[in-house]
């Protein structure tokens, strides 16, 4: 959904986000929604400015989100509050799952298919009966378990269903059983949120959903940074699918991204396991030995992703140009193949083992922002070289001089051999480029002034580094150097600084015809025969022959459609709301006049409306696949199935594929918790979560008496992102001058900690001292009959700049969500005592 569409919501639950403080521009649309009559809810351990501006604040213990959301799901199912016409038609509620499926309530706290030794799941028992359902998201595939050939079963006929919803293994019955124990009483016992507050929120949500009304969730890294982060988001997806709040005005789930253009760097990824626009990275150990095999293994038989061969071939043509020919598999062998998990966290651990020799660090400050920063610094110290680019000196660049290990006396600067190269960067206004925001909106900006001194844009750095590498390997005859020789690297440069033309990069991402270099207008023009080149299929249309649409700034007038199609470009195809076919009923009519978005125009024989329809333009609502012909791709998707990226066009309430830790969200305690799992006592943690057990990265045991408090980390408005930009600027630094820990008054009294005095936090990984902020923003929880205190610390402080303080991330462990390897920063345990650290020498 578009950010501005939040203003059309009748309720918004902000959860896992302090939106008013960390996304203040986006929060304006919640304020507008409230002005129009919407009810705003903030679910969060802390009472923040977001909570203060909402109608309801529900305090919950960090890491108990799925218990809360699961309770809402139960409330919807048990009370029959779901939007029947929507959910029965558009979700997989009626689909029948394999007989072997077992939920955690009947299988010792884990789903069927769990391999205790490997700590990994097989998805076989989660499938639609008799089918193999391919995952639509490359990042989430269970590596090596699926192949395109297996998903041929999806082209042989529709999955079995029972629309009476009586079959014991239909998704509806499975979900009813699964969430039966998530009662309001259990929600209160697990989360600490008073039952009456929880029920009030349930009531707001269900009463304001349906044909005439819609609502949205807004979340940020307060959901993702958990060992169950993906499943928390999935839980919201289920609620929205049941209530019909998907693909409709004011309905959806707003992912508030943590940094500027993080959406863009996911689309054109800096991630290790995806090629641009969500294509799977080849793997050396899968059946990916040739392009033909890779395409066969990764192309789902049905749904939109069946077009995958066009996208990968066009990507290879964009990257390798004339060096990509049919005879050399369009350059497929030039692409590196994965062997293991080379995401940032395990590679940080690998640095300490000597695997990594050097590192480029751009757009981040891991000495402050990564978890377990003492281990991070140990890894840095093993590197031969490190390149750091930032607009001001940051902690990563000076770790060898003033780092936490140096200041603790663990190591002396002269003992660290890492050679650090610091390069000053341009700031946003000093360079041209695009920002892709949380709504997939690609907005262009020009350089408005020259960067001072030797500062250069990251684009300049990467481009000229690439030029030098190509020059270095130009005469090599080694096969392994062919990839860098074959790479197209012909962006025009301008000015004295030889700045690459950023729009040339966008033109390449958009794509063109190879023969006459004509810009493409839509990804539907892409081919798998080498005649088109495209750096990211979802972005096609951002730079059509008419010019750079990301530059456009034409808002709709008051009373207009409200989709603002003339304002920049939203991928794909300038659609503002994904799956907006769901805004019409199965016959193609809007569910209501108040909530109309796209609809079927029978006279014209096409989909039309206020947004660009996210559907095949002329596919009739009454189109049905002819299963006798084994239809593939979109031919297998009926005209009343809006979710075209899924193999059967259904919203997957139950996920037969694509999740590494279960087909349904299930409450597990955080990897560190002061209490046991009240819902599944035999299984405290997510069994598939990534735990890297090595010295210095130990986890606390369940209910470890040494670490009785729950700790969450957060950011502050005044010190943007990792903090450097605000800490080196006097007028923002003075607004948040020192690191602090938020402590509830009851605990402060128990421990004898005074407001503004010193307090020291500790875990087995490390300690940090901070000023005590004794505040009623935090209240004690009753969890399973036990009083549990919650603490909160901003993680944005370091030793550089005017506003300094201990790095909070020394407290955290390196661990990963099973699906994304994202670390846990929002729920861990710690100890707290009055006073300062003992291990620091003070003058």
């Amino acid at each position, binding site marked *: 959904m578009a950010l501005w569409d939040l203003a059309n919501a009748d309720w918004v639950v902000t959860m896992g986000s302090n939106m008013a403080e960390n996304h203040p521009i986006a929060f304006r649309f919640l304020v507008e929604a409230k002005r129009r009559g919407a009810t705003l809810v903030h679910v969060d351990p802390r009472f923040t400015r977001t909570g203060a501006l909402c109608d309801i604040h529900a305090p919950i213990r960090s890491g108990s989100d799925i218990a809360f959301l699961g309770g809402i799901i139960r409330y919807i199912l048990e009370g029959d509050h779901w939007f029947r016409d929507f959910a029965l038609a558009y979700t997989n509620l009626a689909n029948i799952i394999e007989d072997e499926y077992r939920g955690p309530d009947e299988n010792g706290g884990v789903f069927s298919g769990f391999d205790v030794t490997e700590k990994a799941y097989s998805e076989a028992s989660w499938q639609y009966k008799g089918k193999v359902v391919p995952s639509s998201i490359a990042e989430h595939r269970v590596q090596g378990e699926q192949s395109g050939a297996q998903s041929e079963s999806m082209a042989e006929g529709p999955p079995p269903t029972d629309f009476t919803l009586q079959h014991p293994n239909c998704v509806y019955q499975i979900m009813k059983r699964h969430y039966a124990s998530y009662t309001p009483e259990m929600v209160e016992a697990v989360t600490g949120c008073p039952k009456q507050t929880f029920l009030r929120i349930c009531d707001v949500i269900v009463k304001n959903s349906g044909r005439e009304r819609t609502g949205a969730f807004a979340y940020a890294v307060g959901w993702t940074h958990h060992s169950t982060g993906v499943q928390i988001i999935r839980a919201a997806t289920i609620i929205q699918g049941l209530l019909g709040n998907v693909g409709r005005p004011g309905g959806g789930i707003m992912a508030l991204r943590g940094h500027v253009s993080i959406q863009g760097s996911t689309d054109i990824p800096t991630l290790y396991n995806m090629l641009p626009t969500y294509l799977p990275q080849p793997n050396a150990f899968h059946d990916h030995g040739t392009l033909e095999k890779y395409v066969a293994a990764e192309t789902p038989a049905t749904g939109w992703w069946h077009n995958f061969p066009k996208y990968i071939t066009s990507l290879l043509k964009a990257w390798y140009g004339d060096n990509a020919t049919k005879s050399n598999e369009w350059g497929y062998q030039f692409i590196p193949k994965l062997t293991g998990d080379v995401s940032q966290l395990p590679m940080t651990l*690998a640095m300490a083992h000597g695997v990594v020799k050097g590192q480029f660090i751009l757009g981040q400050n891991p000495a402050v922002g990564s978890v377990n920063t003492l281990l991070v610094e140990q890894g840095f110290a093993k590197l031969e070289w490190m390149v750091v680019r930032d607009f001001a000196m940051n902690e990563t660049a000076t770790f060898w001089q003033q780092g936490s290990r140096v200041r603790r006396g663990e190591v002396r600067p002269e003992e660290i051999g890492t050679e650090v190269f610091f390069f000053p960067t341009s700031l946003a206004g000093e360079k041209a480029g695009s920002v892709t925001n949380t709504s997939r909106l690609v907005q262009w900006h020009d350089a408005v002034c020259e960067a001072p001194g030797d500062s250069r844009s990251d684009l300049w750095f990467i481009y000229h580094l690439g030029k030098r590498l190509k020059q270095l390997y130009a005469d090599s005859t080694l096969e392994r150097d062919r990839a860098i020789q074959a790479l197209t690297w012909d962006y025009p440069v301008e000015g004295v600084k030889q700045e690459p033309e950023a729009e040339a990069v966008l033109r390449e991402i958009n794509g063109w015809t190879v023969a006459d270099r004509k810009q493409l207008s839509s990804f539907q023009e892409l081919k798998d025969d080498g005649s088109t080149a495209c750096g990211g299929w979802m972005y096609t249309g951002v730079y059509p022959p008419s010019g750079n649409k990301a530059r456009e700034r034409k808002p709709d007038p008051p009373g207009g459609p409200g989709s603002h199609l003339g304002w920049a470009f939203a991928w794909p195809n300038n659609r503002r709301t994904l799956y907006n076919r769901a805004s019409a009923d199965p016959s193609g009519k809007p569910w209501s006049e108040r909530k109309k978005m796209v609809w079927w125009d029978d006279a014209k024989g096409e989909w039309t409306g206020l947004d660009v329809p996210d559907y095949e333009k002329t596919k009739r609502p009454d189109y049905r696949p002819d299963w006798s012909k084994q239809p593939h791709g979109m031919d297998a998707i009926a005209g009343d199935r809006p979710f075209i990226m899924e193999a059967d066009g259904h919203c997957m309430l139950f996920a037969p594929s694509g999740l590494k830790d279960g087909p349904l969200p299930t409450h597990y305690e955080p990897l560190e918790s002061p209490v046991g799992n009240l819902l599944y006592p035999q299984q405290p943690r997510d069994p598939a979560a990534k735990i890297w057990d*090595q010295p210095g990265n130990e986890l606390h045991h369940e209910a470890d008496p040494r670490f009785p408090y729950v700790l969450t980390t957060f950011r502050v408005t005044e010190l943007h992102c990792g903090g450097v930009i605000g800490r080196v600027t006097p007028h923002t630094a003075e607004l948040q001058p020192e690191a602090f820990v938020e402590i509830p008054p009851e605990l402060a009294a128990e421990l004898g900690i005074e407001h503004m005095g010193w307090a020291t936090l500790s875990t087995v990984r490390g300690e940090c001292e901070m000023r005590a902020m004794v505040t009623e923003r935090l209240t004690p929880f009753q969890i399973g009959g036990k009083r549990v205190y919650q603490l909160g610390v901003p993680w944005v402080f370091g030793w550089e700049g005017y506003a300094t303080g201990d790095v909070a991330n020394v407290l955290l462990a390196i661990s990963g969500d099973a699906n994304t390897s994202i670390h846990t920063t929002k729920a861990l345990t710690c100890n707290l005592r009055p006073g300062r650290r003992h291990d620091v020498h003070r003058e």
Partner: protein
Amino acid sequence: MSIENEGKAALAALDRALAKKPERDSQAFSATTEHLCAMRDQLIAHRREGGGDQDRLERINAVISSALAGHYPLGKVPWDEIERARDALRELVQTA
């Protein structure tokens, strides 16, 4: 430690990891990685001094890539590939 001894230590650690199969022995994989990398670094140093064996360096790099799949797996550990890496390492050690 010499290159040969680093190789032997890596091989012993990888054997330990495989002996525990299908259980993943993090410590054995950590030791494998450390010794393999130490071996690689010495080969690189020799290359930079104008000597060394390029083919050996490439083969040890391939072994490291596979061993990391056990140390930091994507999903299940590809044990067959780890065994192949062990065999390749054994050959490297024996032909040193």
